[in-house]
């Protein structure tokens, strides 16, 4: 199969079940909301060492938010609910509570719920105030610019992590430029994020390592400098490969992001030096979800 002359490999991306939450961060201005949200999701590229995979999903208009102010929607994914709560509370306390004029709300109306403000409230040292409004509990924590308003809990749901595709290009810059196009296009898809910087991981990994205790190591099959030494999956014309990783609240969201991203790459790909699209998987043995590229592109 080819799309605009770019070969699409007959393979699939392998996704994993995760637990997800959505947190809405609002502030007096979009700049402060974005600063808080960026800090909140920072160091959230991979569950392997960050605890969560997180990113800003989209900006929020004043009409959408509970407090009528502008904000940002953040999605966070973890392997289990306990880890997710731990990470959310830690990030909320250090990155949102600290940021001027911010407030935080649950962006998911789902059960079960994890702690949000309920585990940050004690910062109020007894002056915190609980308020039930419309069946939801909020905490008002006195801070130096007034009050930090935060919903007590956030909803969670099952999510899908590890959706991906790999852009093969003539060199590293060509691959990066193509991924930039994909990243912009995928930003329009709801209910999903691309947690790596610019949506891209250049250090795509394989399971295991020659070193004991290392869970993952370099995906040598796609490393151009190892061509001829390892079993390479790089076509002859490819000098670089970059992996775009997608986490979504639903299978459809991940599938949609993969499709939108690949189509965007292929629309401009030949001019940019893209030579093929493939995907990462573990032979279908590890993940519950498979996204066959040719099926996704219909």
């Amino acid at each position, binding site marked *: 199969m080819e799309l605009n002359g770019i070969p699409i490999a007959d393979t699939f991306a392998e996704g994993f079940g995760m637990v997800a939450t959505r947190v809405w961060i609002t502030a007096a201005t979009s700049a402060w909301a974005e600063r808080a949200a960026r800090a909140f999701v920072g160091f959230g590229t991979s569950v392997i060492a960050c605890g969560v995979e997180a990113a800003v999903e989209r900006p929020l208009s004043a009409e959408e938010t509970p407090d009528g102010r502008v904000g940002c929607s953040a999605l966070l994914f973890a392997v289990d609910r306990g880890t997710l709560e731990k990470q959310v509370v830690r990030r909320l306390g250090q990155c949102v509570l600290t940021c001027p004029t911010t407030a935080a709300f649950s962006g998911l109306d789902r059960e079960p719920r994890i702690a949000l403000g309920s585990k940050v409230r004690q910062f109020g040292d*007894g*002056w915190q105030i609980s*308020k*039930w*409004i*419309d069946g939801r509990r*909020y905490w008002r924590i006195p801070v130096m610019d*007034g*009050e930090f308003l935060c919903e007590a809990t956030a909803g969670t749901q099952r999510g899908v992590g590890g959706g991906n595709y790999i852009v093969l290009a003539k060199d590293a810059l060509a691959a990066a430029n193509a991924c930039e196009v994909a990243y912009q296009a995928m930003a329009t898809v709801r209910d999903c994020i691309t947690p790596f910087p610019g949506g891209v991981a250049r250090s795509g990994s394989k399971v295991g390592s020659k070193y004991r205790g290392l869970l993952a190591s370099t995906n040598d099959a796609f490393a151009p400098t190892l061509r001829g030494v390892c079993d390479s999956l790089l076509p002859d014309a490819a000098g670089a490969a970059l992996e775009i990783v997608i986490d979504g609240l639903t299978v459809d969201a991940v599938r949609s992001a993969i499709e939108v991203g690949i189509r965007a790459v292929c629309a401009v790909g030949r001019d940019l030096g893209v030579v093929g699209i493939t995907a990462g998987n573990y032979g279908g043995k590890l993940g519950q979800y498979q996204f066959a590229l040719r099926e996704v592109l219909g």
Partner: protein
Amino acid sequence: MSGWTWEVRATADQVVDLSAAMKGFDWSLSVAEVERLPLAEMRRPNGTVERRVVGDLFRVTRQSDDPQLVLLGTCERLSGIGHRWSSGQLTVDGSAGSAVAREQVAGTIRVLGSVGDGLAAGKRGGLVRVDGDAGASIGGPTIGRGPGMRGGAVWVRGNAGDRVGERLRRGTIVVEGHCGSECGLQMIAGTVLIAGTVGPHVGRLLRRGTLIARRDMVRPLAEPAWSPPQVVELLVLRLLWRAIASWNASLAWIREWPIQCERQIGDRTAGGIGEFLRT
């Protein structure tokens, strides 16, 4: 008219407690079963005890399966209307007696006229709306119980008597008119909003919770029981205004209320850290 109708046959010659009948009422019952629901025993002045059932007091009809019950006729002497009400809509087509919506769990209760004392005592959820005035102790405790209302919403379109929000534990009370003395007496938590004037001794022995009044209707509370007023902007008020406005279109005016207010903390004579907001 749809749903159920209970029409008062004749004005009761003394107060009749409907609590037992209200508690036993269920949408799945037949008309005959509803007519057999017991009313509280009545002790006559001559010492005789009278046992009556719903059918003795009301003409019961069922027009459809809609979860709506309308009480027609003179209901001022009926107490306990809406006791433990848990689903659907109850409408009183006129005024009602005391203890309306006592221990209400969910659903909606609307009284087109006024109500007596003890509105929403021990209430746990749902909405009760009174188009007229309400007596004393809205959202207060039930007899022999400590805390008052524990959840839900109360909306009085007219005036309210003394002790609005007495020992209120949780939930929201809105009075569009004026209220009497000791508003927020011994309040434990929750929210009371008075749009009109407020009588003396506001927030006496209040421990936590929020009392809200209009700046042009009420003076700041006296120090040292209450802290000096501080002008603050409270984001939570925007959520509160929106929530109250969502109860009914006729409450849309509250969306225009500012979120900047004068805040006092108290009642410090009781170690309270509740708040009195003048907005």
